[in-house]
């Protein structure tokens, strides 16, 4: 992670809201210039962590340093070096894209001319130049997110906080946001993003920290996390339920893991290490046994499966689109 000090350090952070402990001994270290994905279901404390790190909320106890400054003692200095994109795009719907960026730039104390120039650059850079003169209420979800990112990026922050940056976006919007984030990281910005999607963390992050009930229960490079939870999974949907026992035998032999049989009694699923090798082998063996396969896919584990592996219990999610939402499928 380089020779410089970490961009974000949180030690033993506690935060209670009334009777609920939102954070209970939260520890995290994010290296300068890297992307850390904070993964967890609703209510795990992701947003509370981001709000404390970005000086919006005070921790009850613990120590937090961001960009070399203590957030509790030196909030003003921290705020000069961070950017924040919250769960809802914090852009002004009534103003145009350009007016938004100029206003935020003025509030970062750029002079009028510098603010105009910076707004122009960022609109160009985030692919919004054509829509610069349109009011934001006519923007798509992805465009709003990108404008929000652009606003966070006016001063090129050392640390950028993204709280569920793609929630509620269609696949195209998600891709647009991912590309914008990658471009920022290429410029040296440290990014801490929260997400409910293992897939998203896996695509963007150098480090994934899994949050459960206010504390980090697993932390490391994505590869390590994935191998800890058994890597990707193979999903088979058979034409007839009668093929299930044979399919289970084949899958168990090839993958060396006990397969799960799904709800509709035609689905067999198991973790795989050698993705393509396992897929080829399973398909060949099933063909030999005469088991007809309707559908097959390789996919990342869902957050539910990650939690089941790490904690032995399902994620405690609330609300729609919670931990049960499937990760995007990777079709072989």
């Amino acid at each position, binding site marked *: 992670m380089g020779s410089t000090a970490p961009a974000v350090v949180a030690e033993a952070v506690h935060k209670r809201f009334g009777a609920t402990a939102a954070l209970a001994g939260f520890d995290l270290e994010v290296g300068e210039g890297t992307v850390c994905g904070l993964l967890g279901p609703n209510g795990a404390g992701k947003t509370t962590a981001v709000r404390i790190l970005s000086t919006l*909320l005070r921790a009850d106890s613990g120590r937090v340093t961001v960009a070399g400054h203590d957030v509790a003692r030196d909030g003003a200095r921290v705020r000069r070096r961070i950017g924040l994109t919250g769960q809802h795009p914090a852009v*002004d719907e009534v103003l145009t894209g350009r007016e938004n960026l100029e*206003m*935020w730039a003025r*509030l970062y104390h750029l002079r009028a001319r510098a603010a105009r120039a*910076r707004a122009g650059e960022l609109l160009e850079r985030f692919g919004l130049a054509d829509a610069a003169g349109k009011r934001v209420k006519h923007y798509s979800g992805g465009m709003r997110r990108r404008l929000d990112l652009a606003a966070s990026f006016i001063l090129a922050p050392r640390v950028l906080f993204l709280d569920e940056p793609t929630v509620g976006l269609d696949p195209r919007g998600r891709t647009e946001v991912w590309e914008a984030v990658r471009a920022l990281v290429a*410029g040296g910005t440290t990014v801490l993003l929260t997400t409910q999607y293992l897939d998203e963390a896996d695509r963007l992050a150098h480090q994934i920290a899994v949050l459960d009930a206010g504390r980090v229960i697993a932390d490391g490079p994505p590869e390590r996390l994935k191998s800890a939870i058994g890597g990707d999974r193979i999903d088979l949907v058979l034409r007839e339920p009668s093929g299930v026992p044979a399919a289970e035998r084949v899958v168990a032999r090839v993958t060396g893991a006990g397969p799960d049989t799904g709800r509709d009694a035609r689905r067999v699923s198991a973790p795989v290490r050698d993705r393509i090798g396992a897929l080829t082998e399973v398909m060949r063996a099933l063909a030999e046994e005469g088991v007809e396969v309707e559908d097959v896919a390789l996919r990342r584990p869902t957050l539910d499966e990650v939690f089941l592996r790490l904690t032995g219990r399902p994620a405690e999610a609330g609300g729609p689109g919670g931990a049960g939402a499937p990760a995007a499928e990777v079709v072989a």
Partner: protein
Amino acid sequence: MTAPPVPPVPALPSGPLSRLGWAWLDGWTVARRELIHWIRNPGMVVFQVLWPIMLVLMFGYVFGSAMTVDGGGDYREFLMPGMFAQTMMFGISLTITMVSTDAARGVTDRFRSMPMSPSAVVLGRGLSDVVNSALDLAVLVGCGLAVGWGFHEGPARALAAIGLLLLLRFALTWVGILVGLSVKPEAAAMAWAPLFPLTMVSNTFVSPDQMPGWLGAVAAWNPMSATVAACRELFGNPGLGGDSWAAQHALLLAVVWPLVIIAVFMPLAVRRYRRLDR
């Protein structure tokens, strides 16, 4: 994508003077945004202009035909200062709506995560509210002149009355910010409801002397009554007087009440803004 040159991080303000400069500059940037919002919402502008005209016609002619002014005089002359102050009171619901919407949309969080002056957002709100209310008052004054109201004590005293009205509005802004930061936008839409009795139990439409004793006392000490009575005095409109100490010292109270409200609610609003725990 080649990165364009990044603007330098501006220095933090060094002394109280440059801190004040920041607050002012940022406050103005925020106020400009609020005013753009207002201008780009023609429906709201039309409503805001029509509402007081409607009230003047309704109270001035519908009720006014059956009303007598305590001590004699034209009812519409009596009514107008009350309408001015009531409009200032109702302005608070705009403050509450805008503030709670910003908080719910995360705009407030972005402001708070930025290296800007912490008082600028609330100050900007206050500035734009006062400008907005000045426009309200201009409409109402025109409307009043059309229905026979007038100021009879010279322009200087009339301007002083307008100043007192805007002072009341400015004071109420802080209450509005505090409430707006504490409620959800859905609740904010109903925030005018408790205001309604507050504007009625006053000397706006009826002199407190004509009410039952306890109600009259509440009405006489209502901060809004002080501003209304002071305006009647400064405009030279009828309906002055009353025996209570409050009624006798309306001018003094019209200054003191808003200052007390500001002294109590401004720190509370700024504090609430700084540590928005939700």
